[in-house]
């Protein structure tokens, strides 16, 4: 390692290391002056990364309170520094971190709230994708749809939680959250997607969640709807109702279908 490289190594180690002492050998000035300047750099790193997480997870921040959030962010930072300057990606592992963070053991749903918030963030920053218009879809002979596979936007995500995380999140989008109707023992499914420059999250039936995940996994339409029906018939899987017309109407109106591929066509209609 060159002299210049070891200078950077020493700087980096001290910047995020356990000791708050300034690496005085690296800088000129009195010990007091070096300590004061060093505090600024160390603080810039710790504070800016905590703020990046706070901006990415505003609902988690409100749920646990600002001081606690900062403490959690610092714990997270000890485990994971950003690997990229695209700091919106930094929150990638935060939900997993919260799942195992002993200080929030009493809030077992917190990790899933973070997961939902990060899914929204990924949807927000995801690529530009063109959806098939109703005219495109109308041009496909209807009988072909039974064997068709849909390609859905990558900015669509479906989540399933043992806790009512969509409701918890939604209550925080109001000025004054009202949690009276939320039962923490009831799990929820949610979908997040982007349309016309906005990111939407909605609570969905377990059957619709299954339908969407099956389509995302590349199942043909008939098979995906059968899986959704199975969920309806089985209370353990969530029960509820499933309307195929409703589900398809949601996909079309939310502009989520980017391509329709049938075995006969192989190549997609949209290509």
């Amino acid at each position, binding site marked *: 390692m060159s002299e*210049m490289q070891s200078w*950077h190594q020493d700087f980096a180690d001290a910047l*995020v290391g356990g000791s708050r002492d300034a690496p005085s050998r690296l800088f000129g000035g009195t010990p007091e002056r070096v300590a004061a300047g060093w505090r600024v*750099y160390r603080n810039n*790193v710790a504070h800016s990364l905590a703020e990046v997480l706070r901006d990415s997870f505003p609902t988690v921040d409100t749920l646990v309170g600002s001081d606690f959030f900062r403490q959690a962010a610092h714990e997270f930072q000890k485990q994971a*520094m950003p690997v990229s300057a*695209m*700091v919106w990606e930094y929150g990638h592992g935060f939900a997993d971190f919260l799942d195992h963070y002993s200080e929030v053991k009493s809030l077992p749903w917190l990790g899933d709230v973070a997961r939902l918030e990060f899914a929204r963030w990924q949807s927000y920053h995801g690529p530009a994708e063109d959806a098939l218009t109703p005219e495109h879809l109308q041009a496909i002979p209807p009988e072909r749809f039974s064997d068709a596979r849909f390609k859905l936007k990558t900015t669509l995500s479906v989540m399933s939680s043992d806790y009512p995380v969509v409701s918890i999140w939604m209550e925080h989008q109001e000025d004054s959250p009202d949690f009276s109707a939320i039962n923490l023992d009831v799990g929820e499914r949610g979908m997040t997607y*982007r349309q016309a420059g906005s990111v939407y999250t909605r609570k969905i039936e377990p059957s619709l969640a299954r339908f969407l995940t099956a389509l995302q996994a590349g199942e043909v339409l008939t098979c995906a709807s059968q899986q959704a029906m199975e969920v309806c018939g089985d209370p353990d899987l969530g029960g509820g109702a499933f309307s195929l017309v409703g589900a398809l109407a949601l996909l079309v109106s939310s502009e989520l279908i980017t391509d329709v591929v049938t075995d006969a066509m192989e190549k997609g209609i949209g290509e």
Partner: protein
Amino acid sequence: MPASAGIGAKSQHFEALACASGPVKWIEVHAENYMSRDVKPGGPHHSWLERLREQYPLSIHGVGLSLGSPEPLDPDHLDGLKRLVDIYQPALVSEHLAWSRWQGKFFNDLLPIPYTAASLENFCDHVDQTQEVLGRQILIENPSAYLSPKDTEMSELDFLSELTRRTGCGLLFDVNNVYVSAKNSGTDAAAYIDAVPGALIGEVHLAGFTRDVTDTIEILIDTHGALVHDDVWQLYNRLIERVGALPTLIEWDTDVPEFGVLESEAGLAERVLGFNRMLGSAHV
């Protein structure tokens, strides 16, 4: 880029910018907030930038390429920056005389380097590489310093001048950073302002700082969270009087105020610029 006032475009002001017809004549965005791993980046940030781009000349300001690190530049980062520059064709592209990455960790801060022959060579290599990949000139910004690396062999201005000579890059001259660094290191800001070659400057930055006093030691912190200080306005005036009108950006990144506050700061810069443009034409 017009020799007039611009502001850093924050997302809370996108709509106001789209409707504005005041002193703000151009905008700057941080490259990293728009960079993506996708070949076809999308989403609200990009929709807005496309729209504002039609209305305003654009400057793309990188904050995380880490040109000062003595290790290869992050190829993904460079690719992302190139894609962005190719899409938006900005009037100006800039980065910092700083480092922020080392051995796979990104520190999200602009950290100082010692000004030595070796660090200059390393920095020049990285600027050369960046300009080659982007296929255009970039500007390099003087940083705010809170400490002085011990092994420094030359002044910041000598380092920057030699950098521009060797690579053909220009300067993004941040007057507030000059003031903050000078106060923090006990050097003379006015002397720096008077010595910088005007011909090298492609853009000027102005911002507010915060005074921090701990155990009787005062440090100025470049927070971009306050009005431009009177002393900094004076230095700015001194610079523009000497070198003429230059594209000047008001930066505000923390506790971002109402759009009107930024417009009024831009208006103050425009007054200095307009006066000197008039003088300039009167001299001709």
